C-alpha cells in the first residue's frame, strides 16, 4: 500500500461569482495550511456566443513527515463563462457568470522520498511499515486529517460562492481555525 485515496465531494454552481476572489481564497488557504499550490492544467476553449469554457486542475501538496505526504486535487470546469460588470458599494467590480463544477479529491502518499525503492528487501520493509507498523497512522491518523481538511476547503469554496449550504459542523474537528 503506497497511497490511500480520500474521497471528496462535488460542487456545482450556476450563477454569478468572483472567480479571481475564489482563486485568491484557495491560494490563501494553501498558504495558511502550508501546502504548495500548483496549477497543473489550464485549458481555455475559443469562446462561443454562449461564452468561454475553461478547465483548471489545481494540485496542492504538503509534506507531513519524512514518510507521509498529503495531496489534494481540485478540478474546476467552467462552461458558458462570461464576464459581467457590477457596481457593489459604489465600486465597479468584474464578476464571472458561468456554470461551474468543482471536484475535490485527495490522497495520502507513503514514502514520497522513494527511500524504499530499488530492491526487493526495501520494498518488503516499506510494506511492513505501511501495512503493519504505521498502518493506523497511514489510514486513520493522517487519512482522517486530510479528509477533514478537505471538507474545510470544500466549505471555504461554498462560502466564497455564497452558497446557502456553506456550513461545516466538523470545522473544529482538527482544532484548526479554518
Amino acid at each position, binding site marked *: 500500500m503506497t497511497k490511500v485515496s480520500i*474521497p471528496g*465531494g*462535488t*460542487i*456545482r*454552481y*450556476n*450563477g*454569478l461569482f468572483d472567480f479571481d476572489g475564489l482563486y485568491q481564497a484557495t491560494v490563501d488557504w494553501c498558504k495558511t495550511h502550508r501546502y504548495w499550490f500548483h496549477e497543473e492544467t489550464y485549458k481555455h476553449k475559443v469562446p462561443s456566443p454562449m461564452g468561454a469554457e475553461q478547465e483548471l486542475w489545481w494540485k496542492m501538496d504538503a509534506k507531513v513527515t519524512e514518510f507521509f505526504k498529503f495531496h489534494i486535487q481540485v478540478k474546476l470546469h467552467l462552461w458558458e463563462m462570461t464576464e459581467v460588470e457590477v457596481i457593489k458599494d459604489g465600486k465597479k467590480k468584474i464578476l464571472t457568470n458561468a*456554470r461551474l463544477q468543482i471536484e475535490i479529491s485527495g490522497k495520502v502518499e507513503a514514502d514520497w522520498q522513494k527511500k524504499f525503492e530499488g530492491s526487493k528487501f526495501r520494498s518488503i520493509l516499506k510494506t511492513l511499515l505501511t501495512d503493519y507498523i504505521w498502518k493506523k497512522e497511514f489510514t486513520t491518523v493522517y487519512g482522517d486529517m486530510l*479528509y477533514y481538511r478537505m*471538507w474545510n476547503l*470544500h466549505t471555504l469554496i*461554498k462560502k466564497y*460562492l455564497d*452558497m*446557502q*449550504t*456553506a*456550513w*461545516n*459542523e*466538523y470545522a473544529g474537528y482538527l482544532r484548526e481555525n479554518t
Partner: protein
Amino acid sequence: MSEKKLVVDQTKFTYEGLFDLNGFYRLLDGFFYEKNWDRYEKMNHEFVTPTGKHIRLELWPFKNITDYYRIHIKIRVNFMDVIKVEVEKDGAKIKMDKGKVSIIFDCYVESDRYQRWEKSPFLWFLRTMMDRHVFKEHYLKVQKWLLSDFEELHTRTKSFFNVYRHYERGQFTVAPG
C-alpha cells in the same frame, strides 16, 4: 465490492412554505456530528433560475461500527424555487427562505467493509454463510443501531419543518415589499 443491504428504502418527506435552509443544513450536519458519524457530501448543486434557487444535495454520511460493519444513510435533498423573504415576528424583521423541499432517505448496512472476504469464491461463500447463520445477531444489532439513528433524524427533520408550518399559520407575516 463489499455487500450493502438496504434497510430503509426511499422514505420521503416533502414540504412547501417557509423554512430556514441554512438551519436545516446545520441540523443535518449537527446531527451526524453529535452522533459521531463521518460526513460525506457527495454532491452539492446550486443554481439560480428566474423562479428562485434550486439546490440539490446528496449526502452519504457513514459510521464505522466495527472492522466489519459500516452503516450509511443516503440523503437526497431537493430545494426548489427557493426565494428569500422577509418576515415580521413581534415587530422584528427576519430573513427566511420560501420554496419547496423534497427529501429522500435510504439506509444501508455495509458488511465486510475492507473487502477481505471476497478474494476467492470460497471466502465469498464462507462470508455469506457466516453472515446468515453464525453472526446474524451481530447484523441485527447493527441494523437496530442504524434504525434508531435514522428514526431520530427523521423525527428531527419533521419537527424542524413543522415548526415553520406552525409559524406560517399565524405567528409570522410576510413583510410587504
